[in-house]
């Protein structure tokens, strides 16, 4: 079975007609839909929400070794539901997909896992917290989980530790994704410290750094015309952080959250945040913007964001670009960039 096929299955569960990037713009019939003014509850909402069609647990980390070399790390678990029907064992309509990656300035390692729900091969429990697919795991106290993944040629064993509070994105966790009101529930933990070992072909490397967790679930987060997004998580050296994304469609829709060093979050409306490509790189035969100008005038941010390794291509069932970036300009720091929908 090839990956492409699984991608289709995972991302086009209901409609065979592709709409938006990876089918995220399909209709939500039967599934629950996020509503404004809902209150997220923890630890319950760390767990899975099978009544929603899609969901992810998404960790990115900027790492440095003893010699000062920069690395990036990704650990992602996606859930998608084929239907709203319930079931036990194999008939469960829940499918799981894991992506893991390590980026060095010279190389980019990627691997992918797929699993069916209902039999214990993959899943997420809220209490005690554990998210897993095969031997990959993010588990333990939600404020101090361990994180592991393995591929044919790389792997990692990490320990995380939260240094600040959970941040609710958008309007108290209700994150609008288009002018038509498509939305998801979205919260982050951007204050993880991270330390551990990268297992690379040239040997083990001890690293430390900071990690950022994104949690999001929805049933139809994009509008039909939205073909992809550019998503930035930036950690500035002064302790402030910023999440910003733009959704590319007939009109570009942007959204951002300013996170003060103490964790106070300020949601910013459509248009406040801007990002425009400065340079593109030829990655896998596609022109991918790997240097950006990012601005948030309200907070005096006007920075250049540059990929540490322009070839951070995720050659997975649904291919996309995801890798660590360096920030220069009005602010300095490090962060992560994800770009989807570049054909």
């Amino acid at each position: 079975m090839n990956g492409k096929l699984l991608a289709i299955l995972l991302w086009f569960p209901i409609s065979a007609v592709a709409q938006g990037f990876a089918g995220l713009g399909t209709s939500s019939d039967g599934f629950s839909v996020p509503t404004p003014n809902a209150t997220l509850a923890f630890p319950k909402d760390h767990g899975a929400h099978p009544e929603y069609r899609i969901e992810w647990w998404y960790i990115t980390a900027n790492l440095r070794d003893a010699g000062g070399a920069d690395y990036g790390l990704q650990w992602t678990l996606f859930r998608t539901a084929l239907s709203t029907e319930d079931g036990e064992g194999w008939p469960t309509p829940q499918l799981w997909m894991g992506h893991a990656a390590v980026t060095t300035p010279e190389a980019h390692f990627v691997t992918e896992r797929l699993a069916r729900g209902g039999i214990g091969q993959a899943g997420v429990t809220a209490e005690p917290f554990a998210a897993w697919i095969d031997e990959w795991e993010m588990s333990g106290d939600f404020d101090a989980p361990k994180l592991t993944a393995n591929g044919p040629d790389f792997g990692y064993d990490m320990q995380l530790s939260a240094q600040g509070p959970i941040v609710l994105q958008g309007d108290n966790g209700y994150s609008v994704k288009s002018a038509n009101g498509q939305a998801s529930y979205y919260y982050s933990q951007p204050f993880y410290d991270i330390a551990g070992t990268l297992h690379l072909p040239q040997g083990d490397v001890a690293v430390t750094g900071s990690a950022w967790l994104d949690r999001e679930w929805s049933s139809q987060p994009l509008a039909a015309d939205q073909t992809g997004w550019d998503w930035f998580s930036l950690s500035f050296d002064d302790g402030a952080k910023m999440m910003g994304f733009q959704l590319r469609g007939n009109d570009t829709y942007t959204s951002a959250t300013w996170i003060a060093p103490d964790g106070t979050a300020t949601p910013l409306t459509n248009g406040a945040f801007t990002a425009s490509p400065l340079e593109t790189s030829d990655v896998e035969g596609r022109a991918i913007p790997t240097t950006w100008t990012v601005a948030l005038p309200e907070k005096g941010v006007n920075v250049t964001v540059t990929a540490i390794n322009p070839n951070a291509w995720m050659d997975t069932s649904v291919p996309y670009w995801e890798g660590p970036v360096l920030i220069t300009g009005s602010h300095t720091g490090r962060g992560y960039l994800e770009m989807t929908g570049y054909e």
Partner: protein
Amino acid sequence: MIRVTLSALLGHWFCNPLQLFTLLSGLALATALWSGVQAINAEARASYDAAAATLGEGQFDRLTRRDGQPILQETYVQLRRAGWLVSPVIEGRIDGTRIIGIEPLTAPGGLAPTALHDTGSLSRFAQGEVIAAPDTALDIEGVARDPAIAPDTAIGDIGTVQNLLGRLGEIDTLIVAPVQPRSQPQLAEIAPDLQRHAAQSGSDVGRLTDSFHLNLTAFGLLSFAVGIFIVHGAIGLAFEQRRGTLRTLRALGTPLRLLIVLMGVELMTLALFAGVLGVGLGYLVAGLLLPDVAATLRGLYGAEVSGTLQLRPIWWLSGMAIALGGTGLAASGALWKLSRLPLLAGAQPRALANAAGQGARVQGIIALALLVVALILAFTASGIIAGFALLAAMLIGAALALPLVLSAILTAASNRATGVVSSWFWADTRQQLPGLSLALMALLLAMAANVGVSTMVSSFRLTFVGFLDQRLASELYVNAETPAQALAIEAFAAQNADAVLPIQSVPIQIRDLPTDIYGNRDHATYRDNWKFLDSADDPWGAVHSGSGILINEQLARRAPLAIGDAVEVDGETFVISGIYGDYGNPIGQAIIDEVAFANLFPDVAPTRFGIRIDPANTSDFIENLQAETGIPKANTINQAGIKAFSLGVFDRTFTVTAALNVLTLAVAGFAILMSLLTLTAMRVPQLAPAWAMGLTRRELGYLELLRTLLLALLTALVALPLGLALAWVLLAVVNVAAFGWQLPMFVFPADYARLGGFALLAAAFAAFWPAIRLMRTPPSELLKVFSNER
């Protein structure tokens, strides 16, 4: 004027509906031949793909329980959670159908059914749909049919099949993905009750089937050539028959240009009609002949059938192309001739090829040139294109040479004839030849194609069966996990089976090439079943004397090594006594005697055993083996099932081949019939003198029949070496160019004799009616010949 001319031209068909029928059916049959072959071709490919996919199950390492019991689903999850990338498989039978449950998300590529290539189907599969081969008797609600599934097999999701078999939570086998994570615990730490079976080497039959596909494609092209000949004949006759009409029209003042345009339009319209008819007929024939009638017809009518749908426009296009292109080609020649004919000369009733009397020499030179090119290419051709050029030069050259060869034979016979009647018979046969030559060329190509098809398919079958026989010579195979088990198996088998053949091998290097070397026991199993590409006298005798070694073709070609060469194995020297085909194995292989092997590699003990036993006793043997030695059933492999399946696939191909034979011969027979019918009317002036001199009409009729049979027989005799040459080019030139190894060619005289019989039968059928008509020619008609002459 256009309308008048057109009605005069078309009027001919109204007066002679039989001629219209022969023209249309000739065109339609040629198209049907082509599109039928395409459909059959596609079906053969599909069944081979299914067979290859089923055999491909052996391409991955597998885990099973040592005690032969089902694996618990928890064990699967434990393995995955420990970093073992395995995928569960469950297997059973429902209503006699083999049903396999797989997990599509974790199954390695090549295991899941090809039908799962869109969203809906995979989603349905994961949620309970079962996909079965079209011929299965499986009676489950909502079962989908797919010709890509191996015969008598159904595939479903692991959960679905567990449920259907009433075996919730059970797994039979875990397939080990070829790529595993960089670190993982030992299997024994996670699941000590499981054992790992290495992938079966040499199970990659893909390259064999690729080769077969290529050859089928070549025959598709050949049938196209036969079709073109027949279209050419049919169009030529349509002109011949209307020479009188054309003379009259031109004498009445119809411009030549108008006549040509109108005839061109008329013929193209007829070709369009006949082409549609022919494609439909081709599908009908294919549908009737092939097991999967419904799918083929669904393809024809454009229903959403996965697999057949995408080929459909190509079939239509190529079918119409042969009808229209063939007609255009034939008509342009005839129209050109028409444009150059003197006004009144057009009415002289001559057979088509008679017009080109002096053309025979040109034809002979072209034929000779093509055959010389073919001969040169036969020794030098090294690529696929050169191989196909060789085929084309050989076939066209032979077809063009046919009338000349036949003429020479008839001249020789005529010179030796003594009696009056026989002298006249030979001379008259020679005189007939030009009119029949196109039909005879079609017969030649049809016969040659049939000889080639039979030889190629049968050679392929023999090779494949021989290959299976080598791999699976014994009725049963038993795996041992410990030396103690190995001893127990040997002891038990010595008592309860005809023979036990230990299988032991070591990876070594021969001439720096990676090679698996085997130590074989001296037993008739090997002598009887192994076929050699090349061997010294008594190759097995040399092996078991301790000095001989057998090597596979791969090693022989790469090293390179030949019979009589000496090779060194761990310091010991052996002389090569045989080279055998080892299709699909990427590395070298060699065989020496068991004792010599034991001396060289004393630490290697056999862990597999081939058991020779009466097939009727195999199940008892397996039961008793388990009862007495504790060797689980899962360690025993009954190879008869695998062989039967492979042979079943070949039987389907033979049905296809037989269909192809009948079809091409029928078309060639039809071409002869058309030619004879046209000639009969023109023959009266030639026969009248013989009748006047005392031969009865009945005798003349018999002689006509005899003449056709004689020409068909002579053609068949020429077709035999041509067909063999064709098969040789495909097996030894095209195949080597495409795949780097040669399929051995075998000849099947009985098949050829039967084929020749069919060809004669077709010719006799074709000649029967014209002969009857001749016998019934009223004497007044014959007399008229003389009155007209005066």
